[in-house]
């Protein structure tokens, strides 16, 4: 460890690693720190990811791909099934990853690109001078150090402190957080080609249960419920209920828990000398809870703009504003559209959900994107889905894909 770098990345998840790799490839001197002694472990993730978007960042490798998914299947409270085909499901199916290996592969790529990686190293504060972030204070093996940098990239996840230290409000309300529990199970006996989503206010209040295939008759079976609905029954209790009723023969071999921000875009993700990416910037998708691709895309943007800022010698918000604008018009646009969908759906009764699913019984799903699905739903249920009309208007006006494509 040196006492000065161009860029310090806090957190070695997918967002941090892509930011570090991008910055290092631009010729910058990069330090990436991870507070845990092992990158990628323990996971806090259902591990589903869209193929198309993943391939923009890394060549798929069988060492970290557990299952190749052909589509997704949504199951309404009365058991009505709605199936969507491959590459048309909104980008959140495709592969089910082994995050423990995937995250390490990404960190390794950033190391190979020239970044210095330090594990068991935790940021404890920012160095702020003249209203500008000039580095971090960190602890490694019980010893405190100060390391200076031109830019800090906060990729410190859902439990981010970096933004708060810089005066950026990142706290989310209970009604803006899905509280989640998941088991990795063997003897799952599910269709290994489909990701399954179970909706229902009894099963998962303002959330859903997922079953993602992990290969070899294993599956990630998890639940997310809105924090404001948690209390008497918690995520873990509802998951245990679901398992007992629906998967009595499954054998639990791992427990995973976590929180997913579903708050929509926050007001600010930059400060002088600082950018936030991924869950730290609350860039997870409010419908699916997926955050890997958004974090990686934001990480790439932040890495590139860090290089640009350092080349021009101005790392203030004047230059970093470009990051803010870039992610908002791509990732942010999608997040805010999906927030409208989420806020409509969390208010539905089980009867509403059943009738929505039933309204799709005659729709051909072979070429169905999530937007097409929503359009079909809207057409058949205008009254129930009236709040969603703004989305379609917006999409028609701007003619953009529901899942934005790389520019």
């Amino acid at each position, binding site marked *: 460890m040196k006492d000065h770098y161009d860029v310090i990345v806090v957190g070695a998840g997918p967002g941090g690693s892509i930011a570090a790799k991008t910055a290092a490839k631009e010729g910058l001197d990069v330090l990436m720190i991870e*507070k*845990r*002694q092992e990158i990628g472990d*323990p996971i*806090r993730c259902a591990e589903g990811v869209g193929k198309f978007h993943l391939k923009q960042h890394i060549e798929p490798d069988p060492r970290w791909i557990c299952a190749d998914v052909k589509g997704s299947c949504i199951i309404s409270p009365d058991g009505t099934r709605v199936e969507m085909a491959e590459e048309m499901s909104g980008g959140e199916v495709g592969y089910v990853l082994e995050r423990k290996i995937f995250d390490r592969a990404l960190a390794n790529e950033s190391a190979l690109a020239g970044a210095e990686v330090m594990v*068991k190293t*935790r940021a404890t504060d920012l160095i702020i001078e003249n209203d500008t972030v000039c580095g971090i204070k960190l602890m490694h093996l019980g010893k405190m150090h100060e390391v200076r940098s031109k830019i800090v990239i906060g990729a410190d*996840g*859902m*439990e*981010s*402190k970096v933004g*708060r230290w810089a005066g950026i409000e*990142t*706290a*989310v*309300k*209970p009604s803006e*957080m899905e*509280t*989640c*529990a998941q088991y990795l199970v063997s003897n799952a006996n599910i269709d290994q080609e489909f990701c399954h989503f179970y909706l229902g206010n009894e099963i998962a209040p303002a959330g859903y249960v997922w079953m993602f295939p992990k290969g070899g008759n294993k599956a990630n079976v998890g639940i997310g419920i809105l*924090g*404001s609905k*948690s*209390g008497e029954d*918690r*995520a*873990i209790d509802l998951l245990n209920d679901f398992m007992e009723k629906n998967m009595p023969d499954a054998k639990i071999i791992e*427990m995973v*828990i*976590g*929180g997913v*921000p579903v708050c929509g875009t926050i007001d600010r993700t930059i400060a002088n000398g600082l950018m936030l990416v991924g869950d730290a910037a609350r860039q997870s998708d409010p419908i699916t809870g997926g955050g890997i691709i958004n974090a990686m895309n934001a990480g790439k943007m932040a890495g590139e703009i860090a290089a640009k800022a350092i080349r021009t010698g101005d790392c203030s918000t004047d230059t970093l504003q470009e990051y803010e604008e870039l992610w908002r018009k791509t990732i942010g646009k999608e997040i805010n559209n999906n927030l409208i969908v989420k806020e409509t759906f969390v208010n539905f009764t089980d009867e509403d959900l059943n009738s929505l699913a039933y309204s799709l019984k005659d729709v051909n799903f072979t070429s169905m994107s999530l937007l097409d699905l929503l359009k079909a739903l809207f057409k058949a249920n205008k009254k129930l889905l009236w709040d969603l009309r703004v989305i379609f208007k917006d999409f028609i006006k701007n003619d953009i894909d529901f899942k934005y494509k790389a520019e």
Partner: protein
Amino acid sequence: MSISVNKYICGYCGACVGVCPTGALELVETWIEVDNKCTGCGICQKICPLGAIEVNR
């Protein structure tokens, strides 16, 4: 007012840190640290996926 985190229940996911309005909590590797900014508001207690947090009254 403060909280107690039962380390035998806690799964160190950090969800409580994300919702803490005062920034009093921190996830340090495998445990949660609480500092004196904690007001005992109980939001973390509500959202904990495993029910590891109690508000001290």
